C-alpha cells in the first residue's frame, strides 16, 4: 500500500507544516502497516492461537449450553444461539483486544529503550496506538475470523437483523480496541514508578477477564457485581462490542453504549497522557 507523504517545504512554510496535524497521518499509516506485516510473519504463532481459541470456544460454548439448558432454554436474555454467538465473538475478539495484556512498553521503560521512542519526531502514544491498530488488524483477520467461521459452521451464529448493527458493531470494535489499548498502556506506564509490573499485569488481566464480560455475560452477574462492572471501563472492551455486533442490543440502545465507550476513550486517554508526562519528567533512563 503506497501512502502519500508530504514534502517538507523550505523556510517558514516548513514550520507551518510542522504544526499541521494532518501531516502526521502518513507516518502513522506506515507504522500501522508495518505492524500488520510484522505480525503476519508469525505464522506458527497465528496457527497455534487459532487452534487454542477454537478449542476454548468449544469448551466455553458447552458450559454455557449446559447452564442455559438447566435454566430452561433461556438465561438472562440469552438463548442457545445467542450464547453461542456470544462465545464465538468473545473468542474472536480475544486476540485483537489483547485481553491478556502486553509487556512491550514496560520492558522498554525498564531497559531504557524508551529513550529511542522519545527521540522520534512522532508522539509516543500515537506511535504505539498506530502499532496497536496494525497489530489488531492482523489479529482480527488472522486469529479472530477463523474461530468465528468454525463457530458459524458448527453451532451457528445469531446474526443482527438491522444492517445498522454491523456499522455500529465495527465502530464499537474500534472503540473497544482503543479502550483496551489505553488501559493496557496505563498498566505498562506504571513501570516508570515500579521496578516490576508483572504482578500488576496479572491483577489487571484477571479483573479484566471477569468484569469485561468475557467469561460470562455481565447481565448474569448479581446486581452488586454488575454495578461494579458498569463503573469500570472493562465492559467497554468486550461486552459492548459483542452485544453491538451480534445485534443482541438494538442499534438505538447501542448508540448509548458507544457513547459510554467514547467517554472511556477520552478519560483513559487523558489519564495515560498524564502518566506519560509525569513519567518522562521523572525519567532516569536506565542503563548506559
Amino acid at each position, binding site marked *: 500500500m503506497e501512502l502519500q507523504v508530504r*514534502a517538507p517545504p523550505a523556510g517558514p512554510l516548513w514550520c507551518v507544516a510542522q504544526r499541521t496535524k494532518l501531516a502526521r497521518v502518513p507516518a502513522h499509516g506506515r*507504522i500501522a502497516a508495518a505492524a500488520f506485516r510484522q505480525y503476519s*510473519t508469525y505464522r506458527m504463532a497465528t496457527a497455534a492461537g487459532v487452534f487454542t481459541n477454537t478449542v476454548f470456544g468449544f469448551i466455553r460454548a458447552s458450559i454455557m449450553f449446559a447452564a442455559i439448558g438447566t435454566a430452561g432454554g433461556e438465561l438472562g436474555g440469552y438463548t442457545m444461539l445467542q450464547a453461542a454467538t456470544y462465545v464465538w465473538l468473545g473468542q474472536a475478539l480475544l486476540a485483537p483486544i489483547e485481553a491478556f495484556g502486553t509487556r512491550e512498553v514496560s520492558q522498554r521503560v525498564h531497559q531504557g529503550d524508551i529513550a529511542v521512542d*522519545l527521540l522520534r519526531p512522532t508522539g509516543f502514544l500515537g506511535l504505539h496506538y498506530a502499532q496497536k491498530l496494525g497489530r489488531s488488524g492482523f489479529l482480527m483477520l488472522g486469529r479472530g475470523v477463523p474461530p468465528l467461521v468454525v463457530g458459524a459452521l458448527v453451532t451457528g451464529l445469531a446474526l443482527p437483523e438491522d444492517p445498522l448493527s454491523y456499522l455500529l458493531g465495527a465502530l464499537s470494535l474500534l472503540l473497544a480496541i482503543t479502550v483496551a489499548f489505553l488501559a493496557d498502556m496505563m498498566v505498562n506506564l506504571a513501570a516508570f514508578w515500579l521496578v516490576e509490573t508483572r504482578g500488576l499485569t496479572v491483577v489487571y488481566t484477571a479483573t479484566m477477564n471477569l468484569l469485561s464480560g468475557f467469561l460470562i455475560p455481565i447481565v448474569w452477574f448479581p446486581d452488586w457485581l454488575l454495578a461494579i462492572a458498569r463503573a469500570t471501563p472493562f465492559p467497554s472492551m468486550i461486552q459492548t462490542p459483542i452485544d453491538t455486533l451480534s445485534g443482541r442490543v438494538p442499534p438505538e440502545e447501542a448508540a448509548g453504549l458507544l457513547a459510554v465507550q467514547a467517554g472511556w476513550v477520552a478519560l483513559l486517554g487523558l489519564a495515560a497522557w498524564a502518566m506519560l508526562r509525569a513519567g518522562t519528567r521523572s525519567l532516569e533512563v536506565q542503563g*548506559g
Partner: protein
Amino acid sequence: MTLESTPHIPSEVPAVELDGLRRDYTVRAAAPGSRRRRRQVVRAVDEITLRIERGEAVGFVGANGAGKSTTIKMLTGILQPSAGSVRVLGREPVPERRRLAREIGVVFGQRSQLWWDLPLRDSYRILGAMHRLTDRAVGERLDRLVEGLDLSGFLDRPVRQLSLGQRMRGEVAAALLHSPALVVLDEPTIGLDMVSKEGLRRFLREDRAERGTTLFLTTHDMGDVERLCERIVVVNTGTIAYDGPLESFRARLGAPRELVVDLAAPREHLELPSAARTLAVEADGIRHRIAFSGQELTVPALLTAIGTQAEVSDLSLTEPAIEDLVRQIYARGGGI
C-alpha cells in the same frame, strides 16, 4: 564548508550551548548494618559549560560514570537538568523534544531504533514518513547512505538477522536519513571489529565534509576521536577536565596507537614511514611492536608499507585507552 542541512536554522546559532549544567540523581541505598535505606544524592554532572559551533566535530570522552551519557540525555531532551541551561540548535531540549528530534540524529550504540522483525529497508520508509520526507527525498538520501555505509547486501534482510556491524551501519543510516544538523553518537563503534569501525568512521567523515554536519561523539575508543574529531572534551566526575583542539591534546600527552604484527619469516628490521617507529622486536624477529600516530597514518597504509618488506601472518591493534589519558591529565595537576 556549507551548511546544507536544515536550512531554516541560521548557521550562526550554535549547535550546543551548555551553561552551568548540573544533574543530581537520588539513590536509595541500604546503609551497611542497617535495614533502613538511606537517600543519597549523587551528582552525575557538575557545572558543565560548553559551546559547540555549527560544523564542529567534538569528542566527548571520559571513564565510565564520568557523566557522558547523562549529558547526552539532557542534550536530547529525555532528561531534565537539575540546574543550569541547555540549548541545542537554539532550542530547549526538554519542552521542544519532538521538534528537536527532526533536527538532530542520535545513535545509541547499545540501543536500536530499527524495526526488529522487518527488513532494514522498511525502517527507512517508516522513518522517512515520520520525518515527513517525500519518497523521492528518502530514495535519494538512502542511495547515498547505502553506498557510503555499504548496506546493499542486507537491505532486504530483517534487522534481527543482521550482524552487529551490519546493524550499527543500519543505525547510523537511520540517524542520518533526515540529514540532521547535529549528529549525536553515543559509543557508536562499541563491539565492532576493526574493519567495521574504519568503514563507519570513513563514512561519518565523508558525510560531514559533504554537509557540514556537527558531530558530538562519546566513546571509549581513542581511535574514534582521532579519526573523527578536531576538538576533544574530557570529562571526569561530572566536570570538564580538558577542552581544546585534539592536536594539542595529543601533542602534550603523546598517545600513539600500537600495532603488533607477526611475520611469516623472521626479520630484524622493518623500514617504517616517519609517523611510525618500532618499539620492540620479539620472538627472534617474528613479532614487531610498532607505535604510530593514528592521525598521520592509517592502519592500511602502515600495513602496505610493511607488506612490501615481509609477509604478515597475524596482527593486533591497541588503542590508547581514554582512561589512561584522563589519568595522565590528573597526574599533571588537572590541566595540560
